[in-house]
């Protein structure tokens, strides 16, 4: 069975849900979400069983990192769908339609299509396929971000995302044309072979192209100085979509970035300069993400800046691409990031469904109102800050290890400072939950059984990864190198 079948299956799954939306008017829309969840769970099992090997195609590989990142994409989508079920009430509030169910179906269908795009991106090793799958992901996000069309913030977010994302796409395409112009290739492995033999005068052309591609990807992974869209879009988008953006969009952005940066290492004259650019990007991202997060009072915006900050740590690992474990560090960090970020968003959906807005002050006294949710958020924040025995620590540990191995002492120094900042702004949430007295509504918060099970599963996974690192490393025997 060719591996690409799985992507086609996910695509078909999304189309089936859309068809059901059009023709099965009476059906409960939440069933659609369940169809998506079950279908994707089946895909996950197939991924679990698949072994790295040849795919029979030039533009599409099925190596260990590809499979790993596809798993990340699938798990993220499943969790986003679970979150969306809890979020359905909010959607109805902002989308008054003819029937109580109208508008919900697409909200469950489009993430599945996005997932197909992400899976393709994880396997793509040709600039054409990279571009096409990137656009599949981006265009479906255009729809999702602006989904709450009666909510001004959501619309603003949609417009911002549309404009800046198309700009980023423009950078990417422009870069690809330069690279093609010099090497006459779009396939990454072909480019890698051709590069050492190009005329010296053309090297700067390749470098320019590569930098443009990196800038384009920088938008996707929310690296400074291409992060302007992040806080507003994250705040305005429906919360499950924010989670999807911050985890899904970022992780596939990183696998593509790793593959692109790796490609240009075959020509040190270009590769070294590209690494310098990544180091500068990492430094800017670390500083901006973590310092700007300090004064935030809205949890969604806080997580937006934290998402930028974590991109910085991931870029440290990318900058250390010459180390053997660099790809592994990126993968494990992203797996940890997935768990802790989605856990925070899941709890946020549940808490803000019974309050007003996502301000951190909404979480005051959560320790008393909903001890279990508070504990879940405590674990998520500990993990994001990088406390040992949690998945987040393992990620940071690997990143610092790679940085030390490749002698990135500048980035290590920055990293030490920003981890300290991180402790401050993540613990601000903990402070609200446990130090501050309850304000206003003191009623206990009802949590659906599905959310409860998911929260517990995520908490357990966070500790499992932190205490038994082999559990994560075993998923990924070797890095992309």
């Amino acid at each position, binding site marked *: 069975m060719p591996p690409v079948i799985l992507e086609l299956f996910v695509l078909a799954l999304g189309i089936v849900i859309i068809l059901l939306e059009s023709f099965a008017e009476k059906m409960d829309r939440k069933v659609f979400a369940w169809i998506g969840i079950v279908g994707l769970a089946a895909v996950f099992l197939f991924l679990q069983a698949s072994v790295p090997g040849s795919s029979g195609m030039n533009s599409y590989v099925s190596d260990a990192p590809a499979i790993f990142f596809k798993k990340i994409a699938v798990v993220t989508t499943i969790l986003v769908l679970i979150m969306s079920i809890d979020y359905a009430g909010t959607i109805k509030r902002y989308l008054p339609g003819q029937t109580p169910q109208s508008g919900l179906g697409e909200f469950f269908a489009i993430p599945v299509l996005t997932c197909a795009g992400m899976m393709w991106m994880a396997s793509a090793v040709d600039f054409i396929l990279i571009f096409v799958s990137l656009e599949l992901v981006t265009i479906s996000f255009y729809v999702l971000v602006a989904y709450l069309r009666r909510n001004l913030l959501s619309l603003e977010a949609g417009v911002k995302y549309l404009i800046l994302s198309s700009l980023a796409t423009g950078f990417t395409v422009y870069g690809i044309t330069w690279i093609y112009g010099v090497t006459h290739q779009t396939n990454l492995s072909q480019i890698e072979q051709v590069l050492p033999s190009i005329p010296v005068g053309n090297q700067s052309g390749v470098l320019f192209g590569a930098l443009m591609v990196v800038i384009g990807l920088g938008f996707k992974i929310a690296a400074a100085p291409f992060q302007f869209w992040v806080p507003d879009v994250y705040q305005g988008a429906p919360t499950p979509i924010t989670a999807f953006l911050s985890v899904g969009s970022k992780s596939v952005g990183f696998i593509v970035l790793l593959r692109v940066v790796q490609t240009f290492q075959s020509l040190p004259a270009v590769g070294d300069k590209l690494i310098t650019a990544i180091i500068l990007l990492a430094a800017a991202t670390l500083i901006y993400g973590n310092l700007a997060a300090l004064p935030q009072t809205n949890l969604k915006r806080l997580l937006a800046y934290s998402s930028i900050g974590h991109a910085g740590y991931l870029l440290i690992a990318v900058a250390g691409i010459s180390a053997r474990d660099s790809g592994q560090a990126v993968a494990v960090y992203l797996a940890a990031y997935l768990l802790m970020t989605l856990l925070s968003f899941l709890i946020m959906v549940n808490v803000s469904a019974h309050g007003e807005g996502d301000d951190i002050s909404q979480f005051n006294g959560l*320790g*008393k109102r909903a001890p279990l949710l508070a504990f879940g958020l*405590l674990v998520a924040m*500990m993990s994001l*800050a*990088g*406390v*040992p*025995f949690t998945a987040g*620590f393992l990620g940071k*540990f690997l990143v*610092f*290890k790679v940085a*030390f*191995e490749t002698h990135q002492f500048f980035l*290590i120094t920055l*990293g*030490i*400072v920003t*981890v*300290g900042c991180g*402790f*401050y702004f993540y*613990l601000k949430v*903990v*402070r609200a939950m*446990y*130090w501050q007295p309850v304000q206003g509504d003191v009623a206990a918060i009802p949590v659906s059984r599905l959310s409860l099970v998911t929260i517990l599963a995520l908490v357990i996974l966070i500790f499992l990864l932190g205490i*038994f*690192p*082999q559990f994560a*490393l075993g998923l990924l025997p070797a890095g992309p190198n």
Partner: protein
Amino acid sequence: MNLLVHLTYLAPVIAALAILLGLPARRTAVIAAVVALASALIVFIEYDRGQAGYQFASALSLVPVWDLKFYIGVDGLSATLLLLTSIVALAAVWIAPKVEEDENRYYACILFIAAGAAGAFASLDLFFFYAFHELALIPTFLMIGIWGTGNRQSAAWKITIYLSIGSIILLVGLIGLYLLPPAEQRTFDIVKLQQLASTGVFAGPGSRSVYILILIGFGVLVSLFPFHTWAPQAYASAPVPVAMLHAGVLKKFGLYGLLRVALPMMPEAARHWAWLLLILLAGNILFVGLATISQKQLDLTLGYSSVMHMGYVFLGIASYNVIGLNGAALLMLAHGLSIAALFAMCGELRKQTGTLNYLDLGGLGTSMPTLCFVFGLATFASIGLPGFANFASELLVFFGAFRNGIAGAAFNEFEIVGTIAIWGVVISAVYMLRAYRAIFMGERQARWQSVKDMPVSVGWAVIMLVAALLVVGMVPRTVLDAIEPGIRLFAK
């Protein structure tokens, strides 16, 4: 036997989880603390002093590629510190006051702090050695922030951010240490690393930079001058059990780390940087000592004094000879017991009078005779009067420092700092006796007529700590016999 070592950290963890799930808080916590103390005591007694090295070891391989294991075992030094941890933990749980709200969380946090310290002392794997220590970070933040006194929020932020930055510096240093040997020899196993050290793989110039990272990382955690400013305020604001555990036990983690990791593995780098450590520790003794004298409140005096006394331990460590290191190790135990006792009684004073300001207090000796007497004993111990463990250990530290002087030709830096350190004893006598006089002697103010003496429960906990100080002070060999063989492996 191996199970008993595991119990020292597992009993608190299990009890904490059980309490969070709804078991009666105080009873469960006390039972767990007693179980941990009994295990630690048996481990300490059964540890075979005839042979140096690690005993009762058990390992579970986690990441074979990195040689990362969950590896637990003890030598004489860690057995001693486990004993310290569990004695102080029992005392801390025992004297914990009645908590009106969220009693479960209160006790669970205390137990997590104790478990973190015990786990760190029992770990023979760098990764978990580090990880266990950080287990205490978040509970400390919560405890000070929720149940602290005074300017508790700022104190909680300060200690948390300071310690997290210290920890991350330490983490980078430890990663560096892991990466020093060639790829095929890399391991997190402390025992193997110590054996590797004798082959000289850590000797290169890289080890000097790694050592300085580790020294600063541990230094922040131990409140080495000038990274000490988090400590006094945090201890003054922390709830009594946290102050006892943190000042008494958790702070010893950094010193233990120097003795366990930095010195045996990078002896050359340690000697190279001894001058820097000497300057900084002189800051601990002189600067912080003088700062202690100027304090006007008992809790801050104790907080600063605990920072100051770290200078002596660092002096023993800087000397890098058997006498000095023995003294440092013994002083870790002695200081842990004495500062815990002092903080416990300080908390009792605050509860009875509502103030710790020297100007408000006075003449309490007649109202609180028992507290006055036991506080006096702990004060003498803290100053370092003969008969208490602090005397024996400080004496060893001074001998250690001067021994380096004799080996050198001229009046060298060890002798200079050693002389300063001896004057430090006078400084500590000044501030402790001043505090004692201000609180217990003199005219009793009318408003302290009705103050009650220390209740029996607190009394027992404190007397247990002071009695341990006396026993070790009279017969220091009981502890030194266990510690010394391990130290002789890497020092002369």
